[in-house]
């Protein structure tokens, strides 16, 4: 199981992009993002090595009537 994002990590990541964030906000972002990242993670295990983002449009066309 991966670890949660910390608020320190969020503060530093945003600061590196020029956005200053207060501690309470950063904690909220870290908590919310950790939940979403964890919820998505099991599905990532199904992705084949060769899969790429453009495969979605190809799949759309393949499944069109």
């Amino acid at each position, binding site marked *: 199981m991966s670890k949660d*994002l910390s608020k320190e*990590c*969020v503060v530093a*990541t*945003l600061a590196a*992009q*020029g*956005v200053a*964030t207060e501690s309470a*906000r950063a904690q*909220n*972002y*870290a*908590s*919310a*993002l950790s*939940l*979403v*990242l*964890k*919820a*998505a*993670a*099991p*599905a*990532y295990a*199904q*992705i*084949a090595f060769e*899969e*790429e*983002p453009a*495969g*979605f*449009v*190809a*799949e*759309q*066309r393949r*499944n*069109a*009537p």
Partner: protein
Amino acid sequence: MTPEAILGLSALEVAKAIREKRVTCVAAMEAALARMKLVHARLNCLVRSDDEPALAAAHLADKEIARGALRGPLHGVPMAHKDMYYRRGIASSCGSKIVRERPAPATATALERLDAAGSIQFGVLNMAEFAFGPTGHNWHFGHCRNAWDPSRVTGGSSSGSGTAVAARATFAALGSDTGGSIRLPAHFCGVSGIKPTYGRVSRAGAMPLSFSLDTVGPLARTVEDCALILQVLAGPDARDATCESRAVPDYVGALARPIAGMRIGRPRQFFYDDCDPEIAAAMQASLETFRKLGATVVDVDLPDIGPWNAAGTLIISAEAAAYHGNWLRTRPQDYSDQVRGRLEQGLAIPATSYLDALRLRAVALREFCDQVLSKVDLVHAPVVSFQTPTIAETDLDAGPEVVAMLGRTTRLTRPGNFLGLPAVSLNAGFTKAGMPIGMQLLARPHDDAAALRAGHAFQRATEWHKRAPAV
């Protein structure tokens, strides 16, 4: 015809009445302008009304009709649109403080196509700030109010479009759907809408939120109107590289085909988790209607959708944060607290997690088509699983409770965006409190026609879409 009688017509009906010279374009426009001003006072749905140019265009359209020149199937039909479709040189607020006075660089392809079809735009409508909110709240222009009960939410982000169509103040309106923003207001306001297949309608000149998920589509009083408007909007566009080049089917013509033999899937999982009993009952009743029309209702097992919704959230958040990065650095104070918080959060998403979410889409679509859409023509589901909340109940600034509320609101609509599927939303009844209940019909990629055909058949057999709120 009286203004009330004109406003009681659908877009298709008023276009026909104009063609047959039973209604003038000027009379239709005057009726819409007056009605919009009246209902705006209660619903806060209008951002700007363009009375003079709209009336001038209506006069011109009448002269064209008099000499037998018809621009297209929407000749003279008044429409107002979500304030995120650009007209060159004119400001589109996008529901924000930041761009409310910025002249648009180019006209949206969607507006060009509606213009070419003869529709006349007479105003722009309220929306969630940068289309990043599913409830209809807007802290810059004021919260939009539901025509069925002004204390309740309209749904968003196409909030003004939903409530103005419901209030008979515009014959139809453009919305956009990235996580449910057409289907949610269609549900909450009791109107019809279509989120087309991703790539079916050009996004050029429409405010971007998430380039992988954004779709452009109409809200209207009937599914038939949605089919007509999609017919006008759909098709390739050199200005949008994601726009499909495939031929546009005859959506309107396909409506005439019966739905007997169509297979409609009722999901065994996910869509009915914690569903309000009144909403579940309305869904069941609508399935009975489809059965009576000759469709077969099939229970279907779904793949695990929860992780897909999470991946969709990562895509929207990361892409929206990229669009807004410059303003988050230079003008953070000009965002509402809620929207700023959600955008800033996207800056912290690891790049590989975002890319994995994009890579997952093909896997998910393949699985959904193989497991579900190979067995049924449509998936039928509720749009929302809870009763319409009040504006006050959902008026939250920021923090964990916002994340929970927003996630709950879009839980049933986000799968359609992640999978890029076409989805029609239409009214399926009302709660005991008198609020509309919507259903959504999801079809295979590029089979928008199937969802429209089923929705239209339902409306021919029922009266729900004919009810109008007493605004």
